[in-house]
């Protein structure tokens, strides 16, 4: 029953999206003005219907209704409940339903609360959101129906890919999608403003919190995904430049640029056309990412199934939306009047620099991700990995960090480096000090070396905007900026430290034998069979000691799932304030020795701590701005009320 209800809700939502588009477009004209009243309610109901469809899908997974094809293909009755539910989006159709649900809800939320925009821009924005939704509803209903029934009900389902049977699946995809698809709002805003030509500071102030909200989720989603891959894959790495990781990084880069250019537009009324362009680009990157991941044209753990038909469908959607938006931009960009002027050395100048560098990194990542496709079209099979991405992106990342240290202290409009130069002595000394420390400490390769030395300088420079301020009266958005920039320094330190100082040990040991990795001594005491709900495993007991300290036990496993039959290795981690010990159990050799792979990764946890700080910074800024918006509205209301009373 749930499946039919879900499908019906989906069709209704799609129909409402069409109504929303038509009514929104007509209401912008003189004659359709009477339709304006229904646009917002329709958007809200459309979002709720998508949510109903999504809950129906969760329900069929919850009860493991095997007559639904998707459940039979991807679930199993013996799976723990949490993975049954999370498994609803651990497949192509379910994840696309999550996608349209988030898109519908984002549109509904905008329709419900956004009151700052001029009415016509608002109508165009909501119609724009419906316009993108329609394409994805069509994709879902015609090419990836999640509610399809089977004529013959199988006795048992195929089960879920064991790599996905982890709590990470419950949080990572929904968070990432909230960010990824949340950017559709920025896209619709940009389209709305381009149609009505209302591009100005008020528009930027209205758009900024939406971009910020999506960006926070995207940041958390990427951070969580990185940590998940780190402990689940058992390869000891935290970023693989996998096409799917790139697909989430590219919208993040564009959204980060957009946030900064929107703040120039909001405060200084400059960079108008550029901000619109980024609004279009950010969500376009989300769509390109979906195409790469869902069409199965790239090799990736995230690619669920290869289906060329779906690929061409998404490609057509991409062409319509991105092409259409760029044409609109091309037609309107020249009519968007030039904003305020500024000198090259100014806050605006630094933010422009940040934007250009972020765009360059975006280009580098995009090229590298698409190159295997281009090469394959010409008959060569290639893959592109860290040897390309690391140095190429660093080339633009490092100058951006240098300007990041100065930018927040520059004044708007016009400034000189001389004025801020004196304040930078301290961070410069810190950089010099860390150069000496790293060289004395045994040195490191170029990239980690740059990272380590820059991180400290950046951390100090990042705090400087708080100097000469009354900390209690410092507005929340300033705190947000400082914490987010500090987060970059913290994450950078973690990344550089991990690649400079990681110690790896790969050995075969007998039970009872002790081995050393960095400051740790690790003794394998026994290997026992253990059983879980849908797997059995061999579990090693490792007694580990840090530099002769107290003993702790780690239990890495090598798991065998039976539906589908597959082995995974469950790594065991031990965190200390200064790093993590990472243990993986391998196979048993013919001589009875067990393979162990151990890593000591100094300060590796700072990578994800930094990521969370960046997101927290965004959150503080969002809260601060929203609170002052609400205060302003309340104050305006009070004034109007008083006037009314006096007039009486």
């Amino acid at each position: 029953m749930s499946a039919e209800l879900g499908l019906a809700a989906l069709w209704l939502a799609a129909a409402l999206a069409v109504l929303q588009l038509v009514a929104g477009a007509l209401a912008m004209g003189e004659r359709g003005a009477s339709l304006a009243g229904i646009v917002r309610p329709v958007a809200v109901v459309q979002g709720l219907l998508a949510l109903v469809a999504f809950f129906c899908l969760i329900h069929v997974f919850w009860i493991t209704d095997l007559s639904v094809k998707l459940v039979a293909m991807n679930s199993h009755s013996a799976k723990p409940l949490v993975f049954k539910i999370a498994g609803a989006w651990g497949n192509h159709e379910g994840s696309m339903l999550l996608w349209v649900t988030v898109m519908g809800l984002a549109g509904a939320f905008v329709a419900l609360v956004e009151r700052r925009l001029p009415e016509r821009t608002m109508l165009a924005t909501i119609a724009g959101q419906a316009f993108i939704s329609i394409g994805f509803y069509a994709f879902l209903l015609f090419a990836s129906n999640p509610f399809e029934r089977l004529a013959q009900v199988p006795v048992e389902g195929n089960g879920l890919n064991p790599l996905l049977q982890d709590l990470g699946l419950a949080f990572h995809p929904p968070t990432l999608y909230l960010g990824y698809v949340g950017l559709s709002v920025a896209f619709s805003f940009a389209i709305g403003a381009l149609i009505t030509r209302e591009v100005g500071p008020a528009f930027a102030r209205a758009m900024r919190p939406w971009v910020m909200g999506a960006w926070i989720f995207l940041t958390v989603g990427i951070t969580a995904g990185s940590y998940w891959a780190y402990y689940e894959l058992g390869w000891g790495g935290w970023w693989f430049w996998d096409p799917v990781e790139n697909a989430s990084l590219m919208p993040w880069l564009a959204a980060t640029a957009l946030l900064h250019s929107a703040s120039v537009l909001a405060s200084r009324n400059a960079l108008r056309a550029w901000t619109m362009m980024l609004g279009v680009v950010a969500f376009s990157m989300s769509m390109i990412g979906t195409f790469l991941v869902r069409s199965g044209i790239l090799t990736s753990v995230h690619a669920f199934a290869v289906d060329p038909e779906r690929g061409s469908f998404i490609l057509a959607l991409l062409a319509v939306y991105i092409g259409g938006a760029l044409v609109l931009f091309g037609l309107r960009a020249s009519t968007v009047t030039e904003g305020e002027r500024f000198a090259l050395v100014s806050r605006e100048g630094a933010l422009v620099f940040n934007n250009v560098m972020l765009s360059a990194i975006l280009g580098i990542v995009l090229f590298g991700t698409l190159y295997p496709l281009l090469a394959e079209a010409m008959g060569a099979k290639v893959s592109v990995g860290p040897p390309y991405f690391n140095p190429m992106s660093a080339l633009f990342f490092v100058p951006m960090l240098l300007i990041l240290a100065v930018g927040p202290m520059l004044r708007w409009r016009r400034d000189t480096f001389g004025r801020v130069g004196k304040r930078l002595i301290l961070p410069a000394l810190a950089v010099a000090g860390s150069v000496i420390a790293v060289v004395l400490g045994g040195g490191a390769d170029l990239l980690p070396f740059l990272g380590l030395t820059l991180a400290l300088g950046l951390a100090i420079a990042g705090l400087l905007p708080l100097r000469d301020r009354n900390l209690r009266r410092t507005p929340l958005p300033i705190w947000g900026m400082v914490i987010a920039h500090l987060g970059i320094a913290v994450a950078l330190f973690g990344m550089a430290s991990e690649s400079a100082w990681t110690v790896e040990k790969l050995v075969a040991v007998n039970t009872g034998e002790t081995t050393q990795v960095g400051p740790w001594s690790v003794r394998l005491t026994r290997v026992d069979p253990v059983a879980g709900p849908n797997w059995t495993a061999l579990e090693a007991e490792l007694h580990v000691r840090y530099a002769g300290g107290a003993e702790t036990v780690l239990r890495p496993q090598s798991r065998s799932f039976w539906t589908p039959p597959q082995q995974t290795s469950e790594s065991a981690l031990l965190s200390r304030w200064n790093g993590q010990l990472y243990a993986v159990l391998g196979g048993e050799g013919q001589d009875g020795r067990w393979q162990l792979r151990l890593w000591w990764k100094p300060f590796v946890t700072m990578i994800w701590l930094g990521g969370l700080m960046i997101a927290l910074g965004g959150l503080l800024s969002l809260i601060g701005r929203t609170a002052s918006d609400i205060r302003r509205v309340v104050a305006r209301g009070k004034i109007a009320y008083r006037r009314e009373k006096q007039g009486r």
Partner: protein
Amino acid sequence: MAAEKPMKAKHQRLVLLVIALVVLFAAALLAIWGLRSQASYFYLPVEIVAAPPEPDRGVRLGGMVEKGSLKTQADGVTIAFVVADGKARVPVTFRGIVPSLFVEGSGVVAEGRMGADGVFVADNLLAKHDEKYVPREMQDMTKQQAEAVMRETT
């Protein structure tokens, strides 16, 4: 500094645009150069024997793990085996924990470098995980060479 005075609107827009375009163009050139020198190419055994890549270049080698060729060395963590495609045979060494589906007679993609001595040193092995996740090169390969492999393995 020339930038002391705010410029005329038209000029400023132009200057910013030109700077942005120059940087992005430079990024594009760099990307092309980087991709040419750093992309790792996929080889079949017959290709890698005919025209070996430079020893320091990362490449991928795909083929079948020859039956009876897999040996574990004394340290217990280094393995040696032969990847073959029916036309050529390439000895491979790998230090690490092998993926569970890596067995003799099945397909493998090895990432690593071709040594000057003709031994391929792998940093990473990609084996067939399950029918849902097959490295794309291997799908092709198994189709093309199913017959050759059958002859060899039976």
